[in-house]
């Protein structure tokens, strides 16, 4: 039986039957009713105590989260039984001679090393916040398979009972795989939809050119129908682009591929023209005011997507008969592009959640169709250009989205 002088490290390797300990702990817990809380605030309970040991061994061992105890120099001291189970090892397991890092997938070792350096307070790195920070790593189990584990760490070097770090691990393989599956599905769907969308747009070009050539008096419904078909095809093209970009951002593969000198005024004019039918359907008037200024070096397709998405949002969440104003002004820090609508607006809570993929506010769902992908993608594109996107909104008054785009993007 361990003595009361044990450090916490000793309790992490289960080597004995704890029934007596448990009984003692239950008794002790009963005596100290009503709150058997173990923590720094309760100096009565320390790691060496029976009650505390019961909690660490039985309660921590029963949780799906495993804990590893590292000493101040990062060497392995012990693991909870949950950690051993998670990796498929028998009680009393010890990591390979090369250390825990050997179990981490080669592609994730850098992530692990950086996280540990942050936890250790490396002044060159951002300090680790044990309440919010975590990293996902692939860790090899006893069968040689990699599992995705979410690691969180606490620096307890100053606590004499720990004199090191506690790192908790939760198996998040199913979450990571679900995200990967979602990305793959979005990507495949988007990839397959691109050809028919491109075909529709090309055929519409041909149809319009043909109609212009025949020079007969066609009923107005014919050109109007072509315009509506084009509007729908363009909308589908935007959705497919958002799906693809969302998948790429999810998997960290989003890159800007083109760098062109772009005339913003011309780009805004084109995107407004593409949105004309959609705005007309909602009886929304779009006006623009662009101050002359320098060209920007951007990915024109992507910035076009940003303008189209924000314009489309402003129209869709506008009120019938509302107005959308687009302004672009060259400032010291870059182009400042504003999209001001007089639509349904959002409360502060909704504004705060806007970047979450697939998030749509209840009011938004009632008001218009949408995927909840566009905004996250739009923000991602602006940020990939080294710019910022900010939203100010008031319920029932409208929304102003401001994009600040540097002249020479990162």
């Amino acid at each position: 039986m361990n003595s009361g002088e044990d450090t916490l490290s000793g309790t992490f390797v289960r080597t004995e039957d704890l029934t007596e300990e448990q009984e003692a702990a239950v008794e002790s817990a009963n005596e100290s009713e009503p709150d058997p809380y173990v923590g720094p605030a309760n100096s009565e309970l320390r790691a060496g105590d029976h009650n505390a040991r019961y909690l660490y061994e039985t309660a921590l061992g029963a949780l799906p989260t495993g804990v590893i105890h590292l000493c101040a120099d990062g060497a392995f001291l012990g693991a909870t039984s949950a950690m051993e189970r998670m990796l498929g090892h028998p009680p009393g397991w010890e990591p390979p001679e090369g250390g825990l890092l050997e179990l981490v997938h080669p592609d994730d070792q850098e992530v692990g090393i950086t996280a540990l350096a942050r936890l250790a307070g490396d002044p060159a790195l951002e300090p680790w916040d044990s309440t919010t920070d975590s990293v996902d790593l692939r860790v090899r189990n006893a069968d040689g398979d990699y599992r995705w584990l979410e690691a969180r760490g606490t620096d307890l070097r100053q606590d004499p009972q720990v004199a090191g770090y506690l790192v908790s691990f939760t198996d998040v393989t199913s979450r990571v795989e679900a995200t990967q599956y979602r990305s793959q599905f979005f990507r495949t769907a988007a990839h397959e939809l691109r050809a028919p969308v491109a075909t529709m747009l090309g055929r519409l070009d041909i149809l319009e050119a043909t109609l212009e050539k025949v020079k007969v008096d066609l009923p107005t419904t014919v050109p109007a129908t072509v315009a509506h078909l084009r509007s729908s095809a363009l909308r589908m093209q935007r959705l497919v682009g958002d799906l693809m970009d969302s998948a790429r951002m999810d998997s960290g593969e989003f890159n800007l591929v083109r760098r062109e000198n772009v005339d913003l005024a011309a780009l805004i004019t084109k995107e407004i023209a593409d949105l004309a039918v959609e705005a007309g359907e909602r009886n929304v008037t779009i006006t623009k005011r662009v101050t002359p200024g320098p060209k920007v070096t951007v990915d024109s397709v992507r910035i076009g997507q940003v303008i189209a998405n924000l314009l489309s949002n402003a129209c869709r969440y506008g009120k019938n008969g509302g107005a959308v104003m687009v302004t672009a002004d060259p400032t010291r820090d870059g182009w400042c592009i504003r999209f001001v609508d007089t639509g349904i607006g959002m409360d502060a809570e909704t504004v705060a959640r806007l970047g979450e993929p697939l998030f749509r506010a209840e009011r938004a769902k009632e008001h218009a169709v949408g995927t909840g992908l566009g905004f996250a993608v739009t923000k991602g594109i602006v940020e990939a250009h080294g710019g910022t996107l900010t939203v100010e909104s008031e319920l029932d008054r409208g929304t102003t989205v401001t994009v600040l785009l540097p002249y020479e993007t990162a």
Partner: protein
Amino acid sequence: MTVSVVIADDDPQIRDMWADWLELLRGIKVVGRASNGEEAIERILELRPTFAMVDRSMPPGDGITAIRSVRAGGYTGPCIVISGEDGEGADESDLADVHYVSKASGPSALATFLDGMGW
């Protein structure tokens, strides 16, 4: 001079759309069509069009391999790679006069390229 093109894409819907679009809207003569990489190499080397348009992925074979082969066979015309994903293959910088057009842009990116060439 009549501008001519060979178009290679395994999806007949999009291949025929490109062909009609180029002929009807740009007056470009479509001298050959191919539905896979091997056919593309054959047609381009045989017909020597002003430029070639190849889909990035069209088994058996792919657009990039086809371009490498026709370059090795002495074809020097501009080659346009039609890619399904934006930015796909943008790293093949060893190949001269290769341009990428994403299906995502529809015909507008192709139009920009043709405008630049004066076609």
